[in-house]
């Protein structure tokens, strides 16, 4: 099993979610995040005080999938999340050693 962590633009969330379901990935967890990277931020003014905001709103998806599904899922995410602009985000993949479904204590891939 592997964990796919994807940081994407909030506006792309719905599309990415649908694409994943499309690709047979039903289960996913979403977190609100803010990101810093190449993408430049913006400036705000409050009564003359100037602040540069370089942490921009992002959405983070976490998906744990069977090894054979990984590539498919990555493609689904990358293609739908891509706008071509700086700030589109990243996908990271890492190993998961065990998964448990709380409801019925199922373990391993069947728990996904």
């Amino acid at each position, binding site marked *: 099993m592997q964990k796919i962590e994807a940081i994407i633009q909030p506006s792309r969330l719905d599309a990415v979610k649908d694409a994943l379901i499309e690709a047979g990935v039903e289960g996913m967890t979403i977190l609100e995040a803010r990101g810093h990277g190449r993408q430049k931020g913006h400036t705000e003014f409050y*009564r*003359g005080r100037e602040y540069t905001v370089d942490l921009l709103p992002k959405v983070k998806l976490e998906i744990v999938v069977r090894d054979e599904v990984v590539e498919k899922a990555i493609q689904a995410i990358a293609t739908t999340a891509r706008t071509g602009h700086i700030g589109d985000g990243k996908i990271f993949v890492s190993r998961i050693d065990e998964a448990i479904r709380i409801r019925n204590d199922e373990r391993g891939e069947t728990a996904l």
Partner: protein
Amino acid sequence: MLAVMPMLAHAQAPATASATDIAALRQAVADAKSSADNTWMLVSSALVLMMTGPGLALFYGGLVRRKNVLGTMMQSFAMMAIITVTWAVASYSLAFDAGNSFIGGLHHLFLRGVGAEPDVAYASTFPAQTYMIYQMMFAIITPALITGAFAERMKFSAMVLFTVLWSFVVYDPMAHMVWGQGGLLNIAGGRFPCLDFAGGTVVHVTSGVSALVCALYLGKRVGYPTVKMAPHSVVLSFIGACLLWVGWFGFNAGSALSSGPLATAAFVNTHLGAASAAIGWMLAEKVRNGKPSALGGISGAVAGLVAITPAAGFVQPMSSLAIGLLAGLACYAMVAVVKLRFGYDDSLDAFGVHGVGGTLGALLTGLFAAKAVNPIFKDAQGNNLPVGAIDGHWGQLLNQSVGIAIAIVLSVVGTLALLKLVDVTVGLRLSAEDEAEGMDVSQHGEEGYDWA
């Protein structure tokens, strides 16, 4: 058409009975006029209370960081609770009982003698109690305005002690001098007749200057100015500012102490002043940042309302547009340029808006006051005399300056002394831990929002 009132119904009207009829009618007319003015004054009183809560509480509460929202709103709320009692018990007497030129007497302690009868020294058409409660609302909001200067870093206990003492030491005397019988600055017979229709000096100069003293004495918030301290909710501040605007009609037009044409004039001037100041501030932002902001718009409106306060019942509508525009630009410059240059932490700009706007307004009142609007100065024969410089009475600018000067001196001295006193007794400032944790949790044991 309405049935004739019962109180008159019995009386028949033979052509010969007119003498008594006239007397009865006079009484009835007086009652009708009184009901009309009393309605206006009660409504105005309610509006001025609404300015403090929720108005000012929201305006300030939105400007602080999330962890301080309740603590900030509590500072205004505490005034609604505590000053109400101190005013009824003693301050009303100290401010409005006939006394010497600086302070009132003690005849009205515990509201003794403040009842259903009018106090003709102030208003002949409605109960003295109405005048008392209306003035109370002013006494409540004035110290609440100061709290913007020491936001996010003062102990609640210290804040309560300081504001209560301040209201006795600074507010009551100032109110007496300007509005009280025999007051030094009273336009009706004072040594220096100072035009202050609804509190430019009494409310805004005193609170604004005191605010600056507080900001300097307490020092900056931890992390200021490097750490981002943006308003946690401009939305709350927006609501608060709009309610301030609406409530200010009671503040200024209510100060006509009658609902005749003068109340209308004050109402109109108030509205025009707020609007053009909002435009002024937004224009300044547009020029400097390329973007006018909502925070700028509401800040400008408040600045305009402050500046028009002393002038509301004395000037022409077009003068109000000028006063507002100047106030918007001046307060912006103070807040966005001067303050940042000097680097003191007048956190919510109580001085930048109320001190500067109030002073500017008091001066411009001397400039624009027109006898055509409100002929308050008369000669022995009762002919109208010029009022402001625009009428040719340049001397009024001096009277205004005296009023401003007294307000400044009284505020600086009084505030410094009280801050010192409170500092050595209960201690003014939050511990670094409490400041970091926020006032809501450290001072009140609660949180503003629980999104869980």
